C-alpha cells in the first residue's frame, strides 16, 4: 500500500509513533493553549472569520485523519463536506429543525455517504483510490447541480435560519453562535486525537506503513480502512453542516472539486500526519483567501503555486518542521 506520510524525506510519522510522557505533557499543554486561544479569539478577531477558520480546520483535521493516519488520499472530501452542508441548510430552513438537529442530520448523511463511497473506493489502492474518490465526488456535484429543488441549483440554499439551540438559545448573535462552533471544533479535535492514539489508530498506522504485514498479523485491513474512511467523512460532514449554519448558506462551491483540493492544500501546508498541522494549515489558507479575495482568479494561481512549492520543497509542512526541530511529535 502506498502512502504519503511515511515516504516523506523526514519520517514525521515515525517520530509520531513514540508517545513518550514528554510528548503527552506537551500535547496536554497545547490543548490548554488552544482552549485559551478559543476563549480569547472572538474578542480579538472578527468572530465570523474565526468561525470560518474553525470549520475549515475541523474539515482539514478530518481529512488528515484519513491521509495522515490511514495513508489514503481522498480527492473527493468535498462530497461529504458539501452534502452535509446542504442537508443541514435544507432541514434548518425547510423543516424548521433546531440547529443542533440540523447539524446532526447533516453529519449522519455524510456518514452514510462515506460508508457507501468508502466501501467502493477501498476496492482499489494508491492512485486509483484518489481518482475514484474524485469521480464519486464529481457525481455528487452533478447530482447537486441537477436537483435545484433540494440544493437551490446555482443559487444554493440561502438565508438559512440559525435558529435556537435546543429551541432555547437564539444563535442569531455571532458571539453566541461562536461558542457552539468552538465547542464543536474542540470536541472534534479531541475525538480525532483520541482516535489516533487508540489501539484502532495504531492498527491504522500499521496498515498505512505496511499493509501486507498488517494483514499477515491477522488484521482485516479493509475493515480498518473503511472505518477510518467513514470516521473521516463523518467529521468532514460535521464541519460542513456547521459551516452551513454559520454562513447561513450551502452552495455548489462546497461540493466542487476545488473544495476537495483546498482541504488537501490546508493539510499539506500545515503538516501531513501531524495532529495540529491541519489547524495551522487552515488558518494560513483561510487568511490567505481573505487577503487575496480582491485579486479574483489570482487566488487560484497563488494556491497552485503554494501546492507546487509545498510538494517540491516543504513536504513536512509548518508543524512538521517544528516537530522536527523540537524532536517531539506534534
Amino acid at each position: 500500500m502506498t502512502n504519503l506520510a511515511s515516504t516523506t524525506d523526514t519520517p514525521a510519522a515515525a517520530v509520531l509513533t513514540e508517545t513518550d510522557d514528554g510528548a503527552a505533557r506537551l500535547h496536554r499543554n497545547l490543548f490548554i493553549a488552544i482552549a485559551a486561544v478559543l476563549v480569547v479569539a472572538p474578542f480579538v478577531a472578527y468572530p465570523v472569520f474565526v468561525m470560518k477558520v474553525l470549520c475549515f480546520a475541523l474539515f482539514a483535521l478530518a481529512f488528515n485523519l484519513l491521509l495522515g493516519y490511514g495513508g489514503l488520499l481522498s480527492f473527493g472530501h468535498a462530497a461529504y463536506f458539501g452534502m452535509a452542508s446542504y442537508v443541514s441548510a435544507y432541514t434548518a430552513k425547510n423543516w424548521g429543525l433546531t440547529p443542533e438537529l440540523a447539524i446532526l442530520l447533516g453529519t449522519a448523511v455524510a456518514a452514510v455517504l462515506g460508508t457507501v463511497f468508502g466501501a467502493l473506493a477501498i476496492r482499489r489502492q494508491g492512485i486509483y483510490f484518489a481518482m475514484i474518490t474524485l469521480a464519486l465526488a464529481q457525481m455528487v456535484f452533478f447530482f447537486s447541480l441537477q436537483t435545484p429543488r433540494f440544493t437551490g441549483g446555482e443559487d444554493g440554499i440561502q438565508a438559512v435560519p440559525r435558529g435556537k439551540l435546543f429551541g432555547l438559545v437564539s444563535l442569531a448573535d455571532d458571539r453566541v453562535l461562536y461558542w457552539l462552533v468552538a465547542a464543536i471544533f474542540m470536541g472534534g479535535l479531541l475525538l480525532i486525537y483520541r482516535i489516533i492514539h487508540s489501539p484502532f489508530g495504531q492498527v491504522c498506522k500499521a496498515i498505512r506503513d505496511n499493509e501486507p504485514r498488517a494483514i499477515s498479523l491477522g488484521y482485516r485491513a479493509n475493515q480498518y480502512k473503511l472505518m477510518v474512511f467513514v470516521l473521516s467523512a463523518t467529521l468532514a460532514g460535521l464541519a460542513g453542516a456547521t459551516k452551513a449554519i454559520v454562513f447561513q448558506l450551502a452552495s455548489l462551491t462546497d461540493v466542487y472539486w476545488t473544495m476537495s483540493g483546498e482541504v488537501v492544500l490546508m493539510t499539506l501546508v500545515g503538516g501531513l500526519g501531524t495532529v495540529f498541522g491541519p489547524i495551522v494549515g487552515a488558518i494560513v489558507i483561510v487568511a490567505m483567501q481573505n487577503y487575496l479575495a480582491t485579486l479574483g482568479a489570482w487566488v487560484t494561481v497563488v494556491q497552485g503555486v503554494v501546492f507546487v512549492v509545498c510538494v517540491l520543497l516543504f513536504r513536512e509542512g509548518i508543524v512538521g518542521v517544528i516537530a522536527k526541530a523540537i524532536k517531539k511529535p506534534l
Partner: protein
Amino acid sequence: MFELLGIPPQALFGQVLLGLINGSFYAILSLGLAVIFGLLNIINFTHGAQYMMGAFVAWMCLNYLGINYWVALVLAPIIVGATGIAIERLLLKRIAHLDHLYGLLLTFGLALIIQGLFRNQYGSSGLPYAIPPQLAGGQNLGFMFLPNYRAWVIVASLVVCLGTWFLIEKTKLGAYLRAATENPTLTQAFGINVPLLVTLTYGFGVALAAFAGVLAAPIYSVNPNMGGDLIIVVFAVVVIGGMGSIMGAIVTGFSLGLIEGLTKVFYPEAAATVIFIIMVLVLLVKPAGLFGRPA
C-alpha cells in the same frame, strides 16, 4: 419519417455522433494518461489544463499570427509538448523518487496555476474558433446530416489512437518504452537512456492532450475551464478501463462516449453522471478495471 423507440432518428444519430466525438476525446486523453502513468507512475492532473492549452495555442496562432487550423494542428501539440518536457525536467524529475501521490498533488497545483493564468488573461466566457473552410458544410446521409468537421474529428482521433497503439506495440521505440515500463533499472543497464525516454514520454502524452484540444476548439468554444471537469470524467474512464492496455483505453474511451451520447437521448437527466455510475458498477464487478490486470 420513421421513429426508433419514440425518438426521431435525427436526434438519435445526432447524439450518437456527439457521443462518439466526446468518446474520441476520452480515448485520446485516457491514452495519454495511460502512457504517462506507465513510465512515470504519476497521474497527470495537468492533462485537462494541457488539453485546454492546446485549444488556446491554436486560437492564439490564428488570432495573433494568422496561422491556420492545419498548421496549428501540428504546431500546438509541439509547443504544448515542449512545455510538458520543461515541466518534467524542472519539476516532476525532482519528485520521481517519492510516492506517486506527490506527483498527483504537484500536477494538481500546476493545473490550478495554468487555469488561473488563462482565466485572468481571457476570462471564463469562452472564445470562438471557426471551423476551417475546407471542412465547412456537411453530408446528407439520408437518415441524418453529418457535418464534415465532426466526421473529421472522429477519423483524426481514430488515426492518432491507432498510430499511438502501433508506435507502442509494434515498433522498436515502443519496445524500449514497454521494457522501461516493466523494469527501468534493467532497461537502463542495457544501455537505453531511460531518463530521456521518460521525458519524451511525458512530452508525447502532453502533446496528445494538446492535439485533442485543437480538435475540440471549433466544436466547443475555447475556454480556460474546458479541461477542468473533463479530466475528472477521463479519470473515471481510466478507472473503468484500467491503465494496463493501450487498446483497452481506446476502446473504453469511444464506448463510454457512445453510452453517454445514448443516455442523452433516452434519459438526459443521467447523462452527466452515467460514466460515474458505470465506474461504480465496474468497481463492484471487476475492481481491476475491464482491461486491467488484477493488482
